[in-house]
């Protein structure tokens, strides 16, 4: 049924990261559904965004079913709560067998456990630390 990989993407959490990512992917001609439990959050989406929005709590199964999670190629969890992201990512991976699942985790200490469960995680704290280090150590012959 699926024509292309990574065609249908569900983004949970329409904060700065979620909204930005949704707009970028929408520009790359992907089908996007964004879920957030605060309707005002959708105002962050840029004019280029051409996907759908669902106002719901994504930790409730009904919301994920409404977003047709069983047909999703990618699920991205970017709410501001680590544990919510972890829970959504696991539901997507273990129950609905979504191919690619990425979760944002602010707290690096939990990262390892969830990577073992085949969930990709992105930790902004670590990414920033690495970027800072690279800038600071640049030109010192290390890096």
């Amino acid at each position, binding site marked *: 049924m699926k024509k292309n990989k990574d065609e249908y993407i569900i983004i949970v959490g329409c904060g700065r990261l979620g909204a930005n990512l949704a707009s970028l992917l929408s520009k790359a001609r992907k089908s996007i559904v964004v879920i957030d439990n605060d309707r005002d959050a959708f105002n962050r989406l840029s004019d280029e965004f051409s996907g759908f929005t669902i106002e719901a709590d994504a*930790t409730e199964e009904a919301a994920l079913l409404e977003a047709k999670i069983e047909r999703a190629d990618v699920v991205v969890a970017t709410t501001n709560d680590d*544990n919510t992201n972890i829970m959504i990512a*696991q539901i997507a991976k273990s129950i609905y067998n979504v191919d690619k699942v990425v979760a944002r985790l602010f707290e690096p200490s939990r990262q390892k*456990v969830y990577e073992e469960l085949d969930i990709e995680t992105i930790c902004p704290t670590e990414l920033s630390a690495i970027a800072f280090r690279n800038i600071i150590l640049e030109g010192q012959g290390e890096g």
Partner: protein
Amino acid sequence: MNIIIVGGGKEVHFLTRSFISKGYNVTIINNKKEHCEKLARMHEKASIVYGDGTKPYVLEDAGAAYSNIVIALTPKDPDNLVICQLSEKIFKIRKTFAVVNDPKNIDVFNRLGVGTVISTSDIISSLIEQKISVDEITNLIPIEEGKVAIMEVEINKDHDILGKQLVNSNLPKEAIVGCIIRNGNAVIPRGDTVILNKDKLIILSLPKVQSDVLTAIRGRID
């Protein structure tokens, strides 16, 4: 036995009191400082850890490596899931309990490896669905996620079952009176045991016959 409880509501207070009276070692993790101080004052024998129980190093501080049971009682379902998973995966705690608010999460949590999942809203809504008047049941304990339940019913003088032998009562086949509390003593009933006023019946039954059990006891239908 070492037990870790994460959360801070009334349940935590009562659970801790009951566990300590049974001689278990209890550690409570709570993320509010004032609450921790209060818990520490109330439960001298319990250890209190101030921190976020969904972080591995906080669980470690609470002695998760030496604990047998973890009970996640926070108000947020995702937090309870993470507490149980970290306890199992990092600290190899085999018995994990989580409370969920959304009854649909029972199945989700089970599939994601949480040992026992309890949904209070599910228990209450199933009681209402079965039109059970809750005031006659003084205690109700669901077992195996509600597949079977123990209830405690106090007999009063209006009840139909009063003065009858158990063998002559109309209790359904899927229910059994396991014990009677009479004047503060436990009595194991036989078929010829007569039910007296103020008896507390401890009844083990399948959920589907709970309302039939009460009908048999009361002799009337609401």
